[in-house]
């Protein structure tokens, strides 16, 4: 599954908001290189800059400094068409499924957008329908029940699955999953994670999880990056970082999480 080919990497990526005394450094000279096929997690508490970094990776925000390389080449998204080309390769799932959809557009429209994005805009409708049906069945949804419905008529879990169906159609090389399960119930969480993993195998993509849940990061990823105040403080394989943290910050983070088999030491507050 994993290969040695670096699909996305960054050097000195920095994002500064505001000017002068109002200046906030959200992402502070981070370096990273994500290899094709590996599952990556970026873990950080709120305000650590992980969501800003995710938006930079997606090309929704422009970094203040530093370079990002995609597929070995300096990323160029300076025009709408170049952005569009980039977004054929990188896609996202957002935290809150309820706010991820335009409430005025039907499910069909959402999925047709994806077919169009993959260059299938001129395909006959039957073919498109077939593709949508396939995508829905991949996430255990029945397209025939969804067609002409609005996303908000679905439950949170179903909406997040629809999001995955979207990715199924788009088949990007990279998927940024920004807290994909934090807004949905524990029981649906497993389903979503399973499907993401299945999808990864199916289309051979590189998922990047952005999360504050260190447990989740441990559970899903090969490589974990721990982020604090805009910097990566520790990174490495999941086992190494989570079970044997070297940095004090990571250790503290882990000790603050309530666990089942380990006493939660409240005296360390």
């Amino acid at each position: 599954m994993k290969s040695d080919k670096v699909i996305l990497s960054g050097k000195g990526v920095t994002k500064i908001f505001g000017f002068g005394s109002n200046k906030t450094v959200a992402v502070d000279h981070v370096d990273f290189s994500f290899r094709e096929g590996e599952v990556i997690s970026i873990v950080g508490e709120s305000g650590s800059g992980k969501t800003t970094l995710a938006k930079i990776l997606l090309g929704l925000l422009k970094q203040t400094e530093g370079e990002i390389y995609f597929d070995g080449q300096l990323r160029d998204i300076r025009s709408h068409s170049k952005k569009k080309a980039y977004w054929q390769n990188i896609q996202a799932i957002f935290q809150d499924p309820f706010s991820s959809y335009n409430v005025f557009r039907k499910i069909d429209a959402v999925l047709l957008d994806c077919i169009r994005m993959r260059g299938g805009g001129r395909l006959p409708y039957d073919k498109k329908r077939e593709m949508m049906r396939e995508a829905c069945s991949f996430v255990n949804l029945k397209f025939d029940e969804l067609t002409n419905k609005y996303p908000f008529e679905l439950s949170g879990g179903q909406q997040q699955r629809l999001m995955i169906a979207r990715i199924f159609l788009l088949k990007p090389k990279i998927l940024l999953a920004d807290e994909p399960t934090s807004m949905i119930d524990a029981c649906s969480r497993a389903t979503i994670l399973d499907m993401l993993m299945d999808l990864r195998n199916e289309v051979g993509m590189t998922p990047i999880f952005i999360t504050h849940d260190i447990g989740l990061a441990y559970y899903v990823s090969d490589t974990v990056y721990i982020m604090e105040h805009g910097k990566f403080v520790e990174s490495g394989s999941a086992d190494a970082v989570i079970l044997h943290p070297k940095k004090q910050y990571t250790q503290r983070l882990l000790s603050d999480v309530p666990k089942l088999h380990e006493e939660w030491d409240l005296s360390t507050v």
Partner: protein
Amino acid sequence: MKLMLKQVFGSGKFVIGFVIFLAILLTVVIYPIFVPDAPLKIISRGTFLSPGIYVNLYDSIDSATRYTLITDDAEARRVAGRLSDEDRAKMREWLIGNGVDEAEIDGADTAQLLDLWELNFDPTVRLPGMTNADRNYYIRLTASLEGLLSTEGATIASTNPETGALEQSDIVNQTDYVHVNEVANSRLFILGTDNFGRDVLTELISATGVSLTIGFVAGIVATSIGLVLGLVSGYVGGMVDQVIVFIMNLFTVIPTFVLLILISFSIGQESRGAFTIAVVIGLTSWVWTSRAVRAQVISLRNRDHVNLSKLSGHSIAYILAMDILPYIASYVVMALILQISSGILAEAGLSILGLGPRTTEVPTLGLMLNWAMIYQAHILNKWWAYLPIILVIALISFSMNLMNTGLDQVFNPALRD
């Protein structure tokens, strides 16, 4: 959509406002079908005719069918109509002042009073303390008393063109009546006439239509400008935003109404049509719409659904139209309603200051008020020349605000119960 309409019409406030507004609108549309008179046609010689039915005197005397009604109180009513108790007291006062023995005068006995009056009254005599106004009153009274107690009919005579002599052509008996509906010329002026002698009701309804149109045009102009600037400013951000915000601030600092007055004044009376005024009102009142839209857009532009739309490769125009606009549409509709209502009020305000649309080409509610004010209808108690107009303005504004509050309750989650 259907659900939204159902919700909107589920709001009692909206429905009441809508019904009032619809009633006004329907009246404006339907009334001219039944009363096709030109609203600015001068129909009375004399100003501020009071509301009521007018029967043509000539035609009523000339009426072919006469009805004899033996109404006992007819005479008493005629006498009372021409000689009130107050008149009797005044006559008595004059007679006593002129030396008639107080005991001789029986105020209640009309015949005796009239006899005494005829015998004694001299218009040239001025009693101590009597003003010229009093004198004029007594002269008018004397004129009106002529033939008061006559039981005979009134003779109508005309000059014979051949002989030049006056010849009796008819006698109108005191028991003669005419059915109002059989008089060919009768007009009903529900709201009387105004200072120009125009039918206030017809004018009012036409003015309501024009004012509503002004409101709509002003509202649409203001809302369009506000919407476009707000959308662009809020979504594009950066330099564009700063420039637009600067313009908005400029317009906020200058009091809109003052600006409106200045523009109206500089356009000059000659070119101030109703449409021009509407556009000017629109051009000066878009600021708060644009501010509000901008704020909404800023809160929307970083929403995930917008990001998702971007990731789906949609253009800015598409995102503005499909991902932003629908979310603020209900808000914009509410803003439009308020803009329409404030446009109508602004027109009225301008017109009262004499800066409204070019006068007397079309009536507007403001112009009608302006004329009523110039002609002192309020001082002369000609209520029909201003009260109905104020009422209509209030009703329009009330209905629009009700609709707006209703919509607000439906669309604003913070107010939802």
